[in-house]
């Protein structure tokens, strides 16, 4: 494959990643958000495979495989399991209305594109839109975390945000050292597992949700 084609494909995948991110932001039910984030991880795995094919970097194949197995299948399954186990209300409880969140999302995307232009030499060294798309994904993940009341949704946000970081790293550097990538993935696995256990424990001991901690005074 020529470099041109690879960048086109990565660009297209970036657009689809943004679309899944919009779905996560607009999801009215927690399950839909989980499916969307699983789809997003799957797309990242595809992007990894495409880059691996283009660069001949075997590390990238490994990373694509791990991403597929861990982030696209296992972790969504864990999240799904926790939601079922907790038997919580499945409707999303946003801090601000979802439509307003989407408006913020638009601003974030536009800003990401606009500001990444000011990176100058860095921006020029990278072909295509991988950098602004990655930045936008990361920030939108943070937006999800900031605007949702339940811990489950914040986990989905963290997950999506991490996907953004991963995408940026992969597309911009054409494959970081394997050890770093694996470290990043382990980080996420740990974070999600710890949070999942925390949520289950908090729930079973005090029957409270994250929103209930607002009024906690020392």
């Amino acid at each position, binding site marked *: 494959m020529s470099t041109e084609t690879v960048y086109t494909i990565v660009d297209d995948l970036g657009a*689809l990643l943004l679309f899944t991110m919009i779905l996560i932001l607009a999801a009215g039910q927690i399950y839909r958000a989980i499916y969307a984030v699983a789809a997003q991880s799957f797309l990242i795995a595809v992007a990894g495979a495409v880059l691996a094919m283009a660069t001949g970097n075997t590390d990238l194949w490994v990373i694509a495989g791990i991403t597929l197995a861990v982030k696209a299948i296992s972790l969504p399954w864990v999240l799904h399991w926790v939601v079922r186990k907790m038997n919580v209300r499945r409707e999303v409880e946003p801090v601000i209305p979802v439509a307003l969140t989407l408006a913020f999302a638009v601003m974030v995307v*536009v800003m990401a594109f606009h500001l990444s232009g000011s990176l100058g030499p860095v921006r020029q060294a990278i072909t295509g839109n991988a950098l602004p798309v990655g930045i936008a994904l990361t920030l939108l993940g943070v937006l999800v975390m900031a605007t949702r009341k339940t811990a489950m949704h914040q986990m989905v946000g963290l997950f999506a945000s991490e996907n953004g970081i991963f995408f940026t790293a992969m597309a911009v550097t054409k494959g970081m050292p394997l050890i770093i990538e694996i470290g990043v993935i382990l980080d996420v696995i740990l974070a999600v597992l710890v949070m999942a256990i925390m949520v289950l424990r908090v729930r079973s001991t005090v029957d409270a949700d994250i929103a209930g901690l607002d009024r906690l005074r020392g």
Partner: protein
Amino acid sequence: MSGERSFALVLLEMTLLVLFGPLVTGTIQKLKARLQSRQGAGFLQPYRDLAKLFRKSTVQADTASGLFRAIPVLVLAATVTAGALVPVVRAGTPAVPIGDALMLLGLLALARFLTAVGALDAGGAFGGMGASREMTIAPLVEPVLMMVVFSTALVAGTTELGALAAHRGTSWIFAWHAADFLGVTAMLVLLPAETGRIPVDNPDTHLELTMLHEGMLLEHSGPGLGCMLLASHTRQIVTLGFVSALFFPIAVNDAGADGSLVGAGAGGFVLGLAAFAVKILVLAIYLALVESSYAKLRLFRVPQYLAIGFVCALTALALRIL
């Protein structure tokens, strides 16, 4: 690249759209029925309905003015004219400048406006309610359609649909830019809204709480109602043709290079027509699937649903410009 489309061809395409509009509705209804394990009415049921309506006489409310009687004809005229702007069998600019994608959206908006005015004029409670709802949804849909058009038009440097289709060429999927993916998803989100289907509107019901478009047709009867129904069938196929011209102009460039309807162009004409039928069928299947697998949204949830399309379209535009 293909040349210009002759005026006769444009007229022929417009007639084809009007003729096959009800068939698309019939197909969607049949598909829906099969998906729900029902036998369903035949594909030709909309034609039978229309034939029945045109034979009947008109009854109208005492409060309705003369405008009310003219509304169905005006709505049909606006929609059919919009049909003339959609390239069906061939890409390329029409020989006579008749308008572009914005003109098409404008004509559809005009038809919508006239429908609402007619509903208000008749003085029925449901008509007014349907009109107010339709007018709440419309401003959320139309700008997004515009943005999708712009995100495509920026590359081609024109908003003329035929020229846009020609610019995209036959190798459409390989030439797709990242923005096109987002544009097409925005379109797919908006299609049910624009064609008046679930999850935004429910075309099968006459329950007052769920009606949008149907509520506005309640006061019409006989040939007037027939015109309104024909207009909504045409509107549906025009919208589907609009989407396929923007994003999947398959085979339109191979069709009849000389622009004539006979001789060398005939094979291409048939090919273009067949490709168009397939494209419309695919989109019709999509609509039937969406209708069967989703529930109708509460009216206040509709803006949230449409916002997905809005953000997608805006991101597509951002990807193009920035």
